[in-house]
């Protein structure tokens, strides 16, 4: 087995530098790579372009990076649960590219499948289509959307082994497994890291070939954005 294990989060993110493009897994705060975000905040890496479905909240997730003005540009489908984000956007400190959620997922998928681009009908007839190539297939218009090209994909899984194989839990899979396939270098933090052979190969969601570095994270807060219960 090819060993992907690194000692800790510092080693995992050691070569992320100012100006890099990062993919960050998660949907809202569900399944975000908490340990890597904390380490990037700690290291104060700047001018980052972040591809992530959302931008965290004021004091958690990508919000922590925004708070220190480490993010130059966000590429997301839904933002704004976050006052500091709004302030930086309105003041022009932060650039934001809003794209349809499916397009975000497909542009990751394309990168992971070695495809340069995909066609999607999402955004046809809207401002999202401006300046993009449109092609008609079987009577319906589609937009050409390029695969992402990110220096690093940073994802969080439930279980992983030192060969880099990943298993996700419930809806924390979201963008994590597609982004894991899409990074030039993919960093996976997992709740439980085991030796090869422990995980059932039939249950693997992301094969280790896509993962370059893996470590066991700690102190997961798993903050819930909108706790809703049946009384």
């Amino acid at each position, binding site marked *: 087995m090819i060993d992907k294990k690194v000692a800790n989060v510092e080693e995992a993110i050691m070569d992320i530098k100012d100006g890099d493009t990062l993919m960050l897994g998660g*949907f809202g705060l569900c399944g975000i790579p908490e340990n890597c975000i904390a380490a990037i905040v700690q290291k104060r890496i700047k001018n980052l372009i972040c591809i992530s479905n959302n931008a965290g909240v004021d004091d958690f997730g990508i919000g922590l990076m925004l708070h220190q003005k480490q993010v130059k540009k966000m590429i997301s489908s839904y933002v704004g649960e976050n006052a500091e984000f709004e302030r930086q956007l309105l003041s022009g400190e932060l650039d934001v590219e809003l794209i*349809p959620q499916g397009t975000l997922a497909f542009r990751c998928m394309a990168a992971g499948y070695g495809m340069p681009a995909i066609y*999607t009908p999402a955004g046809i007839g809207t401002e999202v289509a401006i300046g993009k190539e449109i092609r008609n297939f079987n009577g319906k218009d589609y937009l050409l959307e390029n695969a992402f090209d990110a220096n690093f994909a940073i994802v969080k899984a439930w279980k992983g082994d030192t060969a880099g194989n990943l298993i996700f839990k419930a809806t924390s899979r*979201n963008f994590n497994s597609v982004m894991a396939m899409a990074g030039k270098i993919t960093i996976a933090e997992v709740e439980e890291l085991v030796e090869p052979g422990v995980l059932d190969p039939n249950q693997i969601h992301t094969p280790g070939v896509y993962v370059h570095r893996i470590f066991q994270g700690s102190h997961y807060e798993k903050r*819930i954005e909108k706790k809703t219960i049946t009384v």
Partner: protein
Amino acid sequence: MLDKEGIAKRIAQEIQNNSYVNLGIGIPTLVANYIPKHIHVCFQSENGLLGMGPFPKESEVDPDLINAGKQTITMLPGAAIFDSAMSFGMIHAQKIDLTILGAMEVSEMGDIANWKIPGKMVKGMGGAMDLVASAKNIIVAMQHVNKAGESKLLPSCTLPLTGIRCVKKIVTELAVLSVLPEGGFQLLERAPGVSVDTIKKATLGKLIIEGDIPEMAFN
């Protein structure tokens, strides 16, 4: 005139047996509470779940299990988890039968605007542009007029579009209307106690009224 629960209740009657349904945030979420017992429906949440169940009890709350509105939820027996690419794959492959979502404006051609108001903070389109681009059937749940009293059923949308020629049906506090393929809002039903005249006054787009318009029936 219907309240939000009433709109949800009326939309619930539109759901066919054995269908896969995606519910948007707001009034559409309430629709799940009014599905008749004999109707089998499977709810999709576009963050990667089919077979979404009700909100959890306090003891069942799992931070790794949320819906697309970021609320904690549960899974029903037979549920399945997948990633975001597969989630939008099944949407674009038209495996999802019905999408129910809110809107700021709908045009008589079936165009929808529901994601952006120029000059205000833009939060993003989320999955809405994907859903409206590919859903086999789209029902809009919304108020007939905005807070300023202006019609939201227009000849053409004034706000930035989410999708074009996609809305099939609209349920408001006043009426049920279908959007005709050649354009125009055909009035199908009135809300209890609402006159055709009231609906005419609240509809700026082309309104088509044929024969007597029945009042909505609730079981």
